């Protein structure tokens, strides 16, 4: 059993303070998960808070059959769906262009390397924005949130083999978009 699972089981038994290390471990990733689903920064912060409130409220539903990470992302996903239903009309989705530059420190100190990194991130974000929400979610859950195939499959309600096919198809479509984007930028093509 992972350390996260053990912490969550302690939360289940009433040691609520054990939720704090879990929050610290996941707050940035969950915040980015909501941002990547198109929510504004303030809405994403609210959604992270709401997710942890639900984790506390529904702590009895956590079982040892899955990982804590997959369970947490399941709660986060449902929170996002609920939020979408409630605020269909009013929620202001933030465009990818409007997002703040990353504050994650990179090892590249030199300007050229930074520019190259920014360019790569930009292309990746643009490609993701052009594929379907379902495709980008599969890719992001694996690439950014580092969920295992089994966890993503459980989250999306499919089996692992179906997920593998979906992942491959999603990456294929992402590649197509990438080629389209690079061809647009290349005047010789």
């Amino acid at each position: 059993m992972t350390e996260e699972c053990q912490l969550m089981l302690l939360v289940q038994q009433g040691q609520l303070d054990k939720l704090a290390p879990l929050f610290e471990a996941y707050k940035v990733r969950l915040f980015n998960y909501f941002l990547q689903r198109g929510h504004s920064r303030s809405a994403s912060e609210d959604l992270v808070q709401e997710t942890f409130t639900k984790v506390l409220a529904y702590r009895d539903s956590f079982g040892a059959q899955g990982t804590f990470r997959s369970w947490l992302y399941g709660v986060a996903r449902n929170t996002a769906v609920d939020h979408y239903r409630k605020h269909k009309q009013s929620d202001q989705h933030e465009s990818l262009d409007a997002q703040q530059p990353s504050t994650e420190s990179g090892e590249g100190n030199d300007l050229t390397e930074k520019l190259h990194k920014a360019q790569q991130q930009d292309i990746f974000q643009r490609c993701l924005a052009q594929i379907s929400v379902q495709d980008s979610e599969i890719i992001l859950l694996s690439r950014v949130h580092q969920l295992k195939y089994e966890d993503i499959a459980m989250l999306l309600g499919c089996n692992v083999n179906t997920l593998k096919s979906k992942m491959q198809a999603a990456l294929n479509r992402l590649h197509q978009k990438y080629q389209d984007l690079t061809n647009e930028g290349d005047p010789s093509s």
Partner: protein
Amino acid sequence: MNKQQILESKIAQLCGEQYVPIDSAGEALIEQNPELKQEIAFLEAIWHPNTVSLQQPSADLDLGFYKMLASAQSAQARYPSIPTAESSAVSTKVDLLFSRIKRWFTPQHIAQFASLVVVFMLGFYLNSSESDRASSLQLDALNEQVSSLNTMMAISLLQQPNASERLAGVAFTQKANLHHQELSNLMLQTLRNDSATPVKLAIINALSANAIDSFELALLEIIQAENNVLVQIELSRLLYSQGSPSTIQALLELGKQEQLHPDLRQWINDIKATAST
């Protein structure tokens, strides 16, 4: 290894999953196929650390979370057995079952059952015994029991929070002894304070079926304190048709009061005009 298997293996490798390593035949295929080579290069680029950057949330998030955690902890300290959403869902089902069972034992159902038993017993005694003095006494005793049962039921139902149950209580008063002190007090109190106009009107209707001589003064006071003009007029009608001459006189005097609702004043004045002709 075909193209599909090569890509599957590469993706699994990048995702940190178990994968079948690409064999020499697969390597040869990649070398011969520039498109496949490009696709693998794209996958590697996607999984390059540079492609992903995580944004940091503001300090408000920490503030909100720790505030929520502190309040949850203090709630837990105050109520150690505080249920979670999951366990309360289970307890809700149990509560629902109990409330259904409880519904079978409402005063109304008990009264219906008791009335049925009494009527059955009445029939049994009437059929089985001679119509002599003894059976007549038994019959009177049973009638009294029915009446006291109805009085008890009416008292119980008039105190229910639900207006429809209070209405049922008023219906029971028609079969009950209205001279029962507790019941008559409760009826007057309900007439004064009930928020539901239908309940008040039903009480006036129930009173009209009985002698009201002992309630006349109280009813006159209620007319003046009442806000609903419909209830005021119905009460006035009751007093005018069944009240003593002194009460009727006092009622007609009310028509002179300036603060009285114009509709009621008009009604009283109309009555006065009819009476004088």
